């Protein structure tokens, strides 16, 4: 079954390294195949299963990568990178959790909390480092609670 070759090839392209064993690739292909069946992408399954070298035609590749994203991360499609996206983090986390890949320790235990955005003020390009407001709200709530406890003690 060359679904194995395709899933391995696609993930290896994305992550730019060779890491998927045959057993893992086959396991993932079974999930991806089920997803493709649910999406009624039978022609894609046929194309994958006759693709011996894993280098799938472009028109089918996107559909398979979307299904891989769904199986590993739960998104409907493989998103393009954008500032603040957690997709790459979620993907790596899933690969580590499933044992498909061994963590080198560079990925933390929690979501990346800050990222840079590109800005342009008409003359200069510059970057701003930002944090999701929801994370800041958690800190603000904690500040309020700590102040309340201190005020209670003082009273």
């Amino acid at each position: 079954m060359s679904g194995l070759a395709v899933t391995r090839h696609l993930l290896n392209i994305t992550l730019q390294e060779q890491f998927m064993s045959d057993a893992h690739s086959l396991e993932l292909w079974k999930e991806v195949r089920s997803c493709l069946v649910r999406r009624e992408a039978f022609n894609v399954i046929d194309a994958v299963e006759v693709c011996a070298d894993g280098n799938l035609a472009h028109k089918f590749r996107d559909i398979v990568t979307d299904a891989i994203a769904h199986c590993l991360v739960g998104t409907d499609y493989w998103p393009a990178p954008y500032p603040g996206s957690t997709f790459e983090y979620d993907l790596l986390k899933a690969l580590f959790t499933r044992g498909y890949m061994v963590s080198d320790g560079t990925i933390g235990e929690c979501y990346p909390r800050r990222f840079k955005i590109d800005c342009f003020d008409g003359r200069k390009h510059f970057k701003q480092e930002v944090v999701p407001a929801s994370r800041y709200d958690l800190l603000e709530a904690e500040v309020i609670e700590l102040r309340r406890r201190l005020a209670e003690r003082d009273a």
Partner: protein
Amino acid sequence: MSGPTSIHHLMESILGRNCFTEDHAAALWVEVRARLVDMEATDTVEEVEAFEGRRLDTHPRDIVTNAICFVLTGKEYWPNDYPGSPFVYKFLKECISRGYVAADRIKGDCPSMRFVINSFDGVETIRQEVVPASLYDQAQVEIAELRLQVAALTKPGKV
């Protein structure tokens, strides 16, 4: 001399009508003129002062607008709007302190530190509300200090 007239028209187009007076315009033109002279834009000064109408053409207008920006905010040019830009706040703050506009043109005491950025993931537009990382860092420092204070208060013998 139409320097004050030009400034009056420009500031009205920025701030709205009926708030920027002719006295304001005359005083601001003196400052703007000095800035233009500092910038060695004496040809612009001559062009504005010789101008008979109210609305300057694009060429001198951009230079005069940048000079207004410098006088009121210290920034060398009038920036385009971008997410999280503090420019409008600074500009309005100075206009309020000079009495050009009423204080209620700004809500609150500090610029809104949270803003929305729109990104695209290839299929959908992603709307994210964010704050500057420096603000987040300040809050973290404050929490660390407050936790220490709370811990000190809850130590046995202090209660």
